[in-house]
């Protein structure tokens, strides 16, 4: 940024900037023990969050056993209710044979 050296307000502003720059760093006293304070805050944040995750892990075996039990129940109920289509066809054929015999409709 080019400044006008003949402009007194530019000169004044630049002298203010220079004075502030020369004053240097002013955070030394806050730096003391900063890591300790920061890590304490990070750990506190982690602990506040942790009960949820802790309970999730603790409940994991219960969730797993529910899933396994549901799987077994679905498997058993499906095997009982499954319909044998070939049996229906067989029964259907037997019925039509009896009806044809009674009606005297013998193709053989």
């Amino acid at each position, binding site marked *: *940024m080019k*400044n006008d050296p003949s402009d007194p*307000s*530019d000169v*004044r*502003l630049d*002298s*203010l*900037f220079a*004075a*502030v*720059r*020369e*004053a*240097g*760093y*002013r*955070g030394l*006293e*806050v*730096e003391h023990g*900063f*890591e300790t*304070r*920061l*890590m304490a*805050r*990070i*750990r506190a*944040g982690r602990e506040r969050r942790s009960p949820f995750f802790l309970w999730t892990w603790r409940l994991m075996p219960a969730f797993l056993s529910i899933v396994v039990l549901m799987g077994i129940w679905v498997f058993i109920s499906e095997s009982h209710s499954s319909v044998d289509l070939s049996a229906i066809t067989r029964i259907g054929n037997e019925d039509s044979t009896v009806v044809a015999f009674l009606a005297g409709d013998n193709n053989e």
Partner: protein
Amino acid sequence: MNTPEEVPSDDYLVKATLAGQDEAFTELVRRHKRKVFTIVARFVKNNYELDDICQETFIKVYQNLRAYRGDAPFEHWVSKIAVNACYDALRKQRRRGSEVPLEDVEFALSAPAHDKDSGDAAWEVLRGAMEKLRPKDRMVITLLNLEEKSLREISALTGWSEANVKVRAFRARKELKKLLEGSDEKRSQ
């Protein structure tokens, strides 16, 4: 005795932190806190704010550590987060309204800078005027004139284009001069 080979790199410490070693993150903080403090100190009024924004910066660093790709130096990445934290703080301050009473700002502005030879006094005068600038303008003027960053560096830190930074710097400087001149006129009345 420590040889240079024994000093772990930033990348190594990042990986160790992600693996759950808190000591590794403490070492990262120890290495980079001076840089963060230097940036943040230009934007705050007191040590309480300085400590708070620096902590916020490193908490963001910790939370987003997985996003660090390692294609730029870790220090640049941390500096960018620090600048963003300062910008957020400036915007919050602006929304709340300046906490510095108007009379204090006017007092600081009306005191002739050339009568004050210490940097602290110059900082008070400058800060009084800069608090009246828009957050983006204040950000640019601080990084350009106090931190002496180049336009390219400011662009990289803020994510704004170089042209945008240049225009903002020009406007902010003009505004600052106007504020200081206004205070001179008030004093002469």
